[in-house]
């Protein structure tokens, strides 16, 4: 049983309300933090080794220390609740069931960063959660945790919830800022970075919901205690939203020491794959991270057991590894078609590209069309190489990471499942009714002795 921090009280009835949340020890971190200096809180977060939970895994304390502090210019904290990555729904769970956890983390973080006005940018589809958050903010305000002179500390803080209008791209921090300012959600060209010029040209920190929530246990128990949990640079706990062909889809809090195999098959977590099917592939960190076949997922290319943490999942680079990403864990069993799956993802990225820069605008649509062609049995062998070439020319050449996010799934699918693509092309009629199946994707990989 791994240690639970964020979801420790998730089962308590009525935890959504302030009364129960406070009774269970809520807002202790604010009391503690307001007696500290802001720099001490940043230091504590640095010590904790907390890494951004939105996908990139950038050290949070370091990000906070980058924020510019020009005289007389307000600073802002923006919480990125635009959770739109397919397969990711961890923030939704947290905000829906324990909204005060986020509010508490935001007050502490706002104090640390010197933000008197903080924002939650929430995806438009989470309309009902907007109401939940606003109720929680009202409750916090009535009890003196928000507003002017919080708990007599002299620190003022207001939190506003802003709904997006249903664009994946607005989860990219600079596009989010543009959208928050009321403009078209096009990513900005960096530099300047948000830490220097963010919302209304003011220094801004944009953090994921889970990152900000994790500040609460860090302050309560101390950064060093938090860093004790986990392995290496993967400290603390991580929320994983598991879905796909598993017995128990849902949001799990893990402490990043367990193996991928345990996570999929143990009854504590996903509970195995239904109907006695076998594992074929998995995307462990949200749709944009590379897909891995079963054999590479469970063991690294070195032959070690792969663990559910930042380092182990990315072991081997993109050649044989993947990424922790946002924690959207999607499991595919032997009946799933990788070509169809890749096509679905390509369709998503084509639809969500903002259209600002040419490689992403044109390339995502092109990839989708070719994948559709292969999926519908009209593909040619040259299309596979063409797809590879297109993704190569998108990756790294765009303004924001959406180009990479669109390119990686296609690249990984071709890298690991090329024979399935070829089978589709060689069997144009069969592929419409049958699946390629598991084949060799779960076979142990020969590890050359160095």
């Amino acid at each position, binding site marked *: 049983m791994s240690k639970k921090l964020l979801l420790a009280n998730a089962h308590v009835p009525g935890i959504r309300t302030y009364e129960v949340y406070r009774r269970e020890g809520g807002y202790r971190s604010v009391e503690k933090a307001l007696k500290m200096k802001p720099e001490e809180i940043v230091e504590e977060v640095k010590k904790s080794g907390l890494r951004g939970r939105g996908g990139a895994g950038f050290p949070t304390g370091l990000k906070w220390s980058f924020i510019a502090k020009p005289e007389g210019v307000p600073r802002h904290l923006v919480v990125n609740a635009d959770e739109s990555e397919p397969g990711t729904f961890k923030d939704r769970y947290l905000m829906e069931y324990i909204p005060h956890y986020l509010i508490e983390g935001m007050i502490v973080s706002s104090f640390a960063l010197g933000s008197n006005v903080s924002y939650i940018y929430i995806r438009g589809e989470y309309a009902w959660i907007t109401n939940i958050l606003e109720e929680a903010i009202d409750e916090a305000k009535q009890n003196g945790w928000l507003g002017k002179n919080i708990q007599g500390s002299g620190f003022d803080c207001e939190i506003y919830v802003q709904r997006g209008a249903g664009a994946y791209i607005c989860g990219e921090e600079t596009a989010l800022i543009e959208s928050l300012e009321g403009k078209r959600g096009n990513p900005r060209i960096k530099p300047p970075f948000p830490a220097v010029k963010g919302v209304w040209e003011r220094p801004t920190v944009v953090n994921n919901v889970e990152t900000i929530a994790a500040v609460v246990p860090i302050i309560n128990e101390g950064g060093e205690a938090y860093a004790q949990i986990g392995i290496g640079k993967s400290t603390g706990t991580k929320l994983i939203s598991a879905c796909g062909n598993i017995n128990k889809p849902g949001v799990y809090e893990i402490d990043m020491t367990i193996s991928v195999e345990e996570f999929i098959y143990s009854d504590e977590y996903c509970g195995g794959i239904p109907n006695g099917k076998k594992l074929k592939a998995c995307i462990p960190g949200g749709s944009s991270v590379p897909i891995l076949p079963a054999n590479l997922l469970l063991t690294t290319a070195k032959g070690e057991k792969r663990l559910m943490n930042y380092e182990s999942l990315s072991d081997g680079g993109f050649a044989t590894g993947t990424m922790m990403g946002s924690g959207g864990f999607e499991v595919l069993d032997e009946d799933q078609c990788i070509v169809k799956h890749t096509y679905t993802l390509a369709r998503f990225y084509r639809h969500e590209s*903002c259209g600002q820069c040419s490689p992403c605008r044109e390339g995502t649509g092109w990839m989708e069309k070719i994948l559709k062609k292969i999926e519908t049995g009209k593909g040619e062998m040259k299309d596979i190489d063409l797809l590879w070439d297109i993704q190569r*020319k998108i990756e790294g050449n765009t303004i924001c990471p959406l180009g990479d996010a669109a390119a990686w799934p296609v690249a990984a699918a071709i890298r690991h499942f090329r024979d399935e693509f070829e089978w589709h092309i060689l069997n144009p009629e069969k592929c419409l009714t049958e699946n390629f199946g598991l084949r060799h994707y779960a076979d142990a990989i020969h590890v050359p002795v160095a």
Partner: protein
Amino acid sequence: MSEQNKPAVFKVTIDNITIDVAPGTTILNAARQIGGDVTPPAMCYYSKLEGSGGKCRTCLVEVAAGSTADPRPMPKLVASCRTGVMDGMIVKNITSDRVLDAREGVVEFLLLNHPLDCPICDQAGECHLQDLSYEHGNAGTRYEFTRRTFKKEDIGPFIQLHMTRCILCYRCVYVAGQLTNQRVHGVIDRGDHAAISTFISRAIDNDFSGNMIDVCPVGALTDKTFRFKNRVWFTKPVDAHRNCDNPQCCGKATLWMRGDEVYRVTVRKDPFGEVQSYDGKPGWICNTCRFDKKQARDWVVEGLTTISRHSVIGANKYKILEQPKETIEQVMDGRKPKLLMDIHSISEVNKPGIELSELSRPAHSTDFKKADE
């Protein structure tokens, strides 16, 4: 580094050519100061429009060393139009295979859904996309699907919008936002169906809207008053000016003429296809000058425009910038050219004493003999 210790000039090396530039210069502008082949192409960047650039990705370059202080290379290719130089920066443009490969990809992406209707496009001959694909693209396409189309939209009496040709450089959006008080058009929708449009279908109507045509690098925005009247390479550009009452209008323009007839009026352009600056201010012109003053008598003609651009009309047709050093005799190993027939002397179409080839302006009807003379 403190403010005082910052060097007054930054040394930057682009494709092994080192140049001193002022701090704050972008890589692209530093490369433009060197000129020639090391200048990356730019489809969306427009130095006179604040916020432009970074979108088309044709100007991507490799930074092999960030600066003297931090000589690490940058991991990704960067948009040279939006990346400032640092002292001691080493940039690779045409000397980098990565850059050339990426640029080829960008050109392919830009042409992917482009209708390639150059034969009926008014921009043909002065189109930056034509130049770009000629210089950096491939002859064929690997795209085999139906090209994207849009619903046609009428944006007023002066400007013709062809959304299929648009590369979404956003220049027209910036020019409308920065030149006029009220921008009525912008980009709607997203991704590959993003489109330039007015919200909702109204005419673009302000005194400076015509400049949108001049900043458009492709044939997406063309002059309705010039539409299908002539090919640009048949018209002769002359510099002219007039006293315009509009204080924002610079009154300096290029007239595109054929004989006495003014076919089109545009702003004057610099070697990079951008509007020329006068006293540090971009020389935009008003719609009255552009669309209403279509008579040669409205203007004071200054002389032939010097065109140094590389497209069809720019092939030094009108004013030779550099005369070849060799004479015909040298080229022909000392043999003198033999004149077969001096058309000029026997046709007698022009007035005696007027050497048509030495005119510094387009030939007028007054230069020719009339039938009754």
